[in-house]
């Protein structure tokens, strides 16, 4: 593999890992809200979370560009106040991936929280645990396999994200050129087929490892719960 290809693989792993880990706490919180609380605007929040799943990725990328770009309202604010810049940076790629993977993350976690028996939660309450402790000691351990499944889905989505990323942060080698972007580039130039094929195989390998890893984790949790 060429150094350019290695760079793209490394960048993709960095972007996907960052996107997954950074969106996980928000994903768990919103999944819990949607699963356990009734509040005004709940269906609006639900729709908003799911929007990236149904919108064309290019549209999502464009919306990110006009809001988080250097001249966008949020982007300008973050740049001035905290010096955080998303546009044409790998962090922007991570943001795009996080937004695109978020519906998958929330959906998986929400379903697993809904499967946790609320009667156990109220029992924990009568034993003196406040709602936050109930969540940490009862709900979260019991829905952990769903959290892992959601995280893996988000990671896999991030590894493959193309449309929103390229629209938002373009395709800059070494900065925003992720694995799918490079494959796309290679298919556009004469003699790039071999490189595209190599990266395709790498892509397949990473996806399979991630999937098997999640299976293994889920099974270990399952075994720990069954045994002893």
């Amino acid at each position, binding site marked *: 593999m060429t150094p350019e290809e290695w760079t793209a693989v490394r960048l993709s792993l960095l972007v996907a890992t960052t996107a997954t880990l950074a969106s996980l706490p928000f994903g768990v919180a919103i999944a819990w809200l949607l699963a356990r609380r009734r509040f005004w605007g709940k269906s609006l929040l639900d729709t908003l979370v799911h929007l990236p799943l149904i919108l064309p990725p290019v549209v999502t990328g464009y919306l990110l560009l006009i809001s988080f770009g250097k001249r966008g309202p949020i982007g300008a604010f973050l740049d001035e106040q905290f010096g955080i810049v998303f546009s044409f940076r790998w962090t922007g790629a991570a943001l795009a991936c996080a937004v695109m993977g978020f519906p998958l993350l929330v959906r998986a976690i929400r379903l697993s929280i809904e499967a946790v028996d609320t009667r156990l939660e109220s029992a924990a309450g*009568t*034993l*003196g645990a406040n709602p936050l*402790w109930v969540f940490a000691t009862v709900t979260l*351990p*019991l829905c952990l396999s769903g959290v892992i499944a959601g995280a893996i889905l988000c990671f896999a989505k991030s590894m493959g994200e193309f449309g929103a990323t390229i629209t938002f942060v373009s395709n800059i080698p070494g900065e925003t050129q992720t694995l799918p972007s490079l494959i796309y580039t290679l298919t556009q130039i004469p003699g790039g087929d071999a490189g595209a094929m190599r990266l395709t195989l790498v892509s397949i390998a990473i996806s399979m490892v991630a999937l098997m890893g999640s299976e293994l984790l889920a099974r270990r949790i399952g075994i720990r719960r069954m045994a002893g």
Partner: protein
Amino acid sequence: MSLEVDVDHGRESFRLSARFSAAPGLTALFGRSGSGKTTLVDIVGGLIRPDRGKVAIDGQALVDTERGLFVPKHRRRIGYVFQDSRLFPHLSVRSNLLYGRWFAGDGGAAADLASVVELLGIGHLLERRPDSLSGGEKQRVAIGRALLAQPRLLLMDEPLASLDEARRAEILPYIERLRDAAGVPILYVSHSVTEVARLATTVVILTEGRVTAVGPVADILPLADAGDAGGVLDAVVARHDEAFQLSVLTSAAGDLQVPRLSAPAGAPVRAYIRARDVMLSLRPPEEISALNVLAGRVVAIVPTANGAQADVRLDCNGANLTARLTAKSVQRLALAPGRPVYAVIKSVSFERS
């Protein structure tokens, strides 16, 4: 400890409108299924917010809808033993037991793990997982878990309902020990007359969402409108008759001979006498097989709904007893309030529970 409850809750289809206070000991909430017992206990435990009313423990208000006060369940320090034990499946028995201790703070002298484990006989289960326990074991662990959170009141919602007869017999002594030894006041929901007769200090009878009677178990239970009604006699084991495998009990109403008990001489016991096991005679019966004859006086005659039978309430030297007779027998003996009678009870009709 004193618990004061005065609440209204519900929709048009079912209204709960209950007012009672509970003293120390075990207070049984007794009534048919659908009478609102569980709703009432959920209100006390903080699982349900009542539409209107007050709940207070020792004068401290937990709920007062007029003042907009509602103490959330995790700040009430009220233990709750559910019908379905609700043990945490991801934790060992030991971690389940210690769960509430994390939050109970440091006043840990009252109930430590060792004494609770000893009280409930669950030492051999500590390292097991809840799903490997039997129903009876689960309930004992659930009781221990609630106890270790150091509650000032323990709620028990039909803790024996999901268990078979043998498992019930296994747990009942532990609940008695809890009532007598641990000193934690208990609010106990049940629709079983035998359980209430055996465990309760005070009985609150709930009928279609309303409290219809409150008082000491021996006074109230005979009034309960249940197919299995009867009388309760507080007694002391006088001696054991080893030759015939009998125990002799002394009570206010007189001596009773019952199948051999395991309790030692001098131990207090409670005899529950079902109304349909009591026979009445106008003269002291002679040459009959029944070993127990108690002299008393008719207090009241209450016909059953269809009038074919009647519950004859007796006063046997201060103790309440009820006999279920046919309307024909009531007429044949010309029974009426004030009439002296003899209650005849076969020893074999006593069940060991």
